[in-house]
Each structure stands twice: as C-alpha cells, then as structure tokens.
C-alpha cells in the first residue's frame, strides 16, 4: 500500500485549465481543493498557487514544475505541481498531497537537504543520476589515501566497492528503487581496502525524477562487530527487485485489461470482456501484494521508525472513508464517517495513519454484506486518540483474534482478495507510532478494529 509513500507514487490528480483560467476538467481531489478555496465551476481557478503556475506555464510556453504549500481548510497541504501547456489549455498534474501542520515551516526540498555536516562523517560525496561522482570532499583524499580529483566524473564504484549488508542485500539498490535515503551501505575504499559505511539522501530533479545521491562516508573501525542480522527480514534486494520487476508490467496488464473490459477500442465478445475484468482484478491483487511486501520489508527493519507529527485523526478517518467510498458503493455498503466538525488531535505519521485506516475500512467493506454499514468513529481519551472501524460482517472468532495480526494470515482464508499482510503491517505501523491496533469481535456480530495513537499534548 505504498501509494502513500510520497517518493513512490503519491496520489496524482490531473486537471485542465482553460485559457480563461477556469478548470475545464479536474479530478475530484482538485475539484474539492478548488471548492474549499472558494472556487466554482466555470470561475477562475481559486487556488492562487496553482493559478499562478498554470498562468506562468501558459505564458512561457514550457513546462513549469514547482513545489507549493496550499491552504486547505485549516491545514496546509504540500503539493508538487507540474503545468504543461497544451495548445490553448494547460494540463496540471498535482502530486504529493502531504498535509503539514500550518505552523510548521515547509519541509525542505530534497535538494536542499544537502548537508551531511555531521561530526561523525569523514567525507562527503555526490553523484549524478548515472551514479558518477560529481563532488568529493577534497581534503579527505590525502587523509584516506585516494585522489579526489581523479575520482571526479568516475562511477561511484571507482571509489568504493560495495558490500552486501548482513542480510545479503545492497541498501543502495533499495534506495535507488524506492528513491529514498540510503542508510548504512557497507563498502570498502578501493584505494586502501578499508571498510566504510555510506549514507545518502536522494536528490530529485524538477520532474521528481532521480537526479543523484548526496552522500557521506564514515570510516568503520575494523574490529567493530557486524550488526546482528535478523533472519526474519526480507532482503531489500529481493523486495526492491520484485517492486521494479513487477510494478510496471502489472500496471500495464491492469490498464490494458481494464480497457478491454470497458470495450474502449470497440465491441468485444461478452465472455472476453469478463475475462479481462478477471485479469485486471488479479493484476490489482498482485500489485497490492508487491506494495505490501515492500512495506513489510520496511517495517521489519530493526531501525524502522516514524516521525510523529500533529495530525487530526478525524480528518484522516474522513479521508480514508472518502478514498473507499467508490469501492463501498460498488459493494452496496455505506460508510458512516466522523462529522465534518469533529477534530481529534493526535501524533502520528499522516500517510501511515491513512494507510492503516484505508486498510481497516477496506477490510470492513470487504467483509460487510450488501446493504450493511461500516461505521468509523473517533474519540479521545486522556492520553490517546482512538479511531474505531466497526462492521457488521461475520466477525472474528476469539481464537483467531491473535492470528489475524500475524504475517500471511487472513480473517477468512477462503475469501478472495487480500494477501494476509495488511493487518500485520498495520499493527507494526501503529506500534511504530507509539500506538496500537486491536480487534474486538464475536463471531456473527461483526468486528471492531481499534486504532489508538498518542494525543498531541500541544493541542489539549
């Protein structure tokens, strides 16, 4: 479910801005954002930052990409906007959608997170997108026995030979595949054979593509014990390889199968259209599995942590319910979400909390009979913010209530869909945010999944 990982594929919304500055087409997320900013159908785009970028792209006649922070109701949302002139119109592509608390300074862009001036760093290095060294701290050369000048322009591997981690994987591959910081890549300095540890941030270009590493190297004391390997974890190479190898082909299979099913290119015999729907659905299932395996690898790393930030749990719950409203409508299930004026401050990682709630509400919808209700409520205790997702499905027997949080276990193994990783990951995420995820249920009486998170003391 890494759709909520900003560096991979955050939700992307599209819109077309007409020459008069109005939205002639927009995905629901942008329609909603525009309406909340006071915009109306046919009136000029009301979100000033978006309007400015669209106008600039139209006037310059070239693509303009920029990160902006947009006020949305009481919160600010971090967006990445790409405006491409297209004849008289401008096509907007908006990704990111990361909520930030209004009082916090905007997150520095990855490109400005350049400094690794940490005292435990022996020298710094940078590469371009082809992993060629574009910068090396010069005075490190004489100290550690290499010629920094000669290394400039050479591949990163001319400076270091990369070793596998304790789990047999190369962290750099994971970092490249997932476009996220590289931590603790063991390596050896080619000139001396001495062990170093490499860390790096990923630099993105204006289009959000990988533009290189901004890294640091730290000499390792030779007799330092190797970090204990966890036999339980999946190798990052395995998951990143899986991710790379499967995601694109699967997405293509799903898209093609969908368009066959929709008979977009002309009429198709009914049976075949149905087969195509099956193919698309199986493809989606596999895609979810890939997402979950990638997440699994992340949550099982010993150093996995999340940085809690103030969030409004009621808002996250409403968003999760909103995201699943189409699926619920298809299944004939209604989702009752917290009222719009309810606010429950909590501490958590916005995307991860959303991910957990989407999983819970998605499960509830899946196991609810047609015509039933899924009720999402949010409350606050003295120390915790609590969200309850209740369904009227067949429930979970007491003996199964521990099992369903295990890896590859399912509420109902006979039921189609799901891969047995969602709840396991959800609980790991909840606990990584100092919260928890539990279930209360009796067979035949539906289930109540309870997510607790610490409250934000600042907002009491």
């Amino acid at each position: 479910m890494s759709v909520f990982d900003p560096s991979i594929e955050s939700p992307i919304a599209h819109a077309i801005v007409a020459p008069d500055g109005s939205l002639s087409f927009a995905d629901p997320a942008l329609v909603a954002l525009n309406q909340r900013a006071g915009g109306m159908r046919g009136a000029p785009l009301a979100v000033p930052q978006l309007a400015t970028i669209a106008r600039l792209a139209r006037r310059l006649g070239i693509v303009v990409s920029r990160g902006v922070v947009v006020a949305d109701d009481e919160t600010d949302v971090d967006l990445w906007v790409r405006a491409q002139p297209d004849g008289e119109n401008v096509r907007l592509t908006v990704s990111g959608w990361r909520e930030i608390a209004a009082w916090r300074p905007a997150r520095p862009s990855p490109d400005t997170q350049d400094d690794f001036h940490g005292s435990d760093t022996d020298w710094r290095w940078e590469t371009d997108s082809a992993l060629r060294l574009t910068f090396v701290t010069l005075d490190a050369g004489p100290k550690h026995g290499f010629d920094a000048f000669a290394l400039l322009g050479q591949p990163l591997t001319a400076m270091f030979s990369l070793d596998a981690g304790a789990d047999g994987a190369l962290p750099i591959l994971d970092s490249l595949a997932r476009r996220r910081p590289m931590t603790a890549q063991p390596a050896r300095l080619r000139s001396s054979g001495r062990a170093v540890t490499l860390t790096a941030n990923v630099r993105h270009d204006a289009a959000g593509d990988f533009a290189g590493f901004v890294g640091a190297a730290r000499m390792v004391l030779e007799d330092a014990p190797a970090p204990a390997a966890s036999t339980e974890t999946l190798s990052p190479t395995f998951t990143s390889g899986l991710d790379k190898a499967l995601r694109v082909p699967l997405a293509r299979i799903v898209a093609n199968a969908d368009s066959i099913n929709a008979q977009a290119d002309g009429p198709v015999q009914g049976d075949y259209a149905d087969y195509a729907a099956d193919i698309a659905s199986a493809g989606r299932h596999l895609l979810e599995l890939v997402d979950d395996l990638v997440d699994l690898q992340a949550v099982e790393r010993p150093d996995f942590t999340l940085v809690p930030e103030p969030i409004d749990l009621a808002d996250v719950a409403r968003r999760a319910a909103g995201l699943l409203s189409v699926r619920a409508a298809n299944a004939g299930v209604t989702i009752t979400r917290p009222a719009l004026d309810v606010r429950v401050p909590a501490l958590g990682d916005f995307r991860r909390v959303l991910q957990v709630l989407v999983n819970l509400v998605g499960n509830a919808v899946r196991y609810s009979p047609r015509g039933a209700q899924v009720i999402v409520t949010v409350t606050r205790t003295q120390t915790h913010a609590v969200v309850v997702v209740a369904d009227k499905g067949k429930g979970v027997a007491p003996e199964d209530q521990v099992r369903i949080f295990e890896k590859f276990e399912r509420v109902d193994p006979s039921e189609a869909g799901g891969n047995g990783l969602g709840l396991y990951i959800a609980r790991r995420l909840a606990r990584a945010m100092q919260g928890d995820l539990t279930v209360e249920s009796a067979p035949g009486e539906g289930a109540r999944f309870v997510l607790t998170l610490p409250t934000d003391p600042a907002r009491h």
Partner: protein
Amino acid sequence: MSVGPDPVRDVVSPYDPVARAEDARLRADARLTGTIADFFLDADARLDDRTRLMLAQVLGAIVGAIEWDIRRHAARLLAGGGATQAGEAMLKAGAGGVLDRLTRAGLLRDEELMDELIARVRHDLIAASLPVEVAEPDEASLLVRLAGVPDSVVASAASALLAAESRRRVANEQGSVGGSELPAELHHRLVWWVAAAVRDGLKSVTRESDRAITDAAQRSLAAHDEGERPDAVATRLAGALDARPNELPAVLVESIGDRRLSLFVAVLAHAIGIAFDQARAITLDPEGDRLWLALRAIDLDRPTIARIGLALSEADPRRDIEAFADALDAIVSVGVEDARASLAPLALNRDFRMALRALARTDRR
C-alpha cells in the same frame, strides 16, 4: 563591512574617562553616519543577508589566506637567517588584524575587487540553487560526460572544471580558501595591500623584516595561477567545445540543468565573443535584459529562452518571473542582427570598456 573603530582609540589610555567619552562621541557620530547611509540605501543596491554573509566570509578567507602565507613565509625567512625573535614577531604582531586594517583604510572598497567578489558570490549562490534537470535518466550529467569524451582537450578541460568547482565548493562551505582565485591583477593588488598591512602591524620595522615581507609577497604572487580559477577553466572548456549554433541551445540548457552556471556563462561568452566577466555580469543581472538580448543574438528560440529564464528565476529571488513572462514575446521578436548590434559595446577591449565606464562616472558627478 561595518564602520571601523577610530584609530585614535588605539592610543587612548583605557582609564581616561574624558578621552573615553570623546571617543564614544566620535564613534556614535560615525555609527549614525553609517546608519543614515544604510537607511537611504536603494533597496536594489542592498545585499541580501545570504550574499552579505558569504561575501564577508569569502573576503575574510581570501585576505586571511594571503596574510598567513606572507606571515609564515616571512617568519621562516627571518628565523632561517637567525632572527628568531623577529620571526616570531612576524607571526604574532597584529595577527588576524589585516582585514580590519585594510577595511579601515578603505582599500577594500576597491570597485573592481568588490565587483569581482560580489559577482563570484552571487554566481556561486545562484549555481547552488539552480533546479537540477536530468536530461536523460541513467545518462551521466553534462560535465561528467564531457570529461569522458575521446577529444582529450575537451575531456581534460571538463575534468579540470569538475575539480575547480569542487575546490570552490569546499572553500565556500568551510570558509577557507586554498588560493584567492582572483584575476591576476586583483590578486597582485591585494597581496601588496596585505603585505603593507602586515608591516603596519609590526612594532619595529627593520630592513630585514621588509625584505622578508617582500620576498613572501613575491612568492605568493608567483604561486598564483590565474588559469586554475573556475572561470578560466570554464572558459577553456567552452573554447574547446566551440559549440556550433545548432548545438548551443542544448549545451546552454543542459549546463543550467546540471547546475554548472560557470559553463553556461563561458559558453555564452564564447558564442557572442565577449569576456567571461561580461557574460557573468549579464547572467547575474536580475533584470536580465542584456541576457535576453545575448540569447537572441545567438538565435535561441522562445522555449529555450523561457527555460533558461525560468531556471534562473527559481534560483535567484531577485528576479521577477512575471515581468519576464510579460516581456518574453517582445524578447523573442528582437531580430538576431539587432540583438548583436546592441551587444557590440560588450565586446570592446576590456581596458577600453573600463576607461569608458570611468569617464561616464566622472560625467555624472
């Protein structure tokens, strides 16, 4: 630079309340004059804090590096000649005070020196803020690619630029410089000023100490290699590349996307036949009018000019992207020949240009 302390203060006894009061009054006067000048300073002329900080750092580092070069070498010469005490005095007397001394004397207000340093600082700050643009995924960045081409002249110049820019970056980040990286004339001037200030700080000046300082200064001058400056290396690379008119748009856009502003400037300078410092000045100018003319003079099309303008605006908060967008159609409508003609004054001999500038300035007085 702040208003320096009054030299009178150095000889005033710290225990003389009357003299101290008078001293305070003088300082308050000087401070007020400075504050008034600061208040009425045109906003366009004012340095932003980042530039000001880095300028102070660079100036301090350059002067400091030359000062220590001179002191160390002079001390070694004196000590080597048996005058150990004089050598130690050379290291200690007024150590680190050269920058203040030169500021107080007003020497550092030298227009050419400050022009060069301000342009250099702005250039480096803008280059570091340019948005990265990856031309082709998995393809090495422009300069790295050039460093690997079979043409050894291009390849060695590109490697040299990679090295020179790394050196500059380390210097900027650590606030220390290896060399002044100034044009030879300015370096020459600065070395003798520093030498004079070092001598000025000595309690007793002897023939030996003068000779030692002179030798040390001359050694610093001899060691200065103008050709190692990033500007000079970039100019060399641009000359080796000698981009054809049909290659220019790609080279210019890619050098901006690779955040190699010095290469952009050098290629532009080479294409329109002007000096690097001229091309740098028009590239850094926030109004940009001369830059747009220069880009028209090499017949760049609308999207290319727009791309360059947008990237520079993202990197330089002084620029007005809206005004640029307003003017873009008018810029593109300028004919190549007209643009070339209007840039002709830039291509004049440097000394001739300076003389004309000096003349124009005296006219205004």
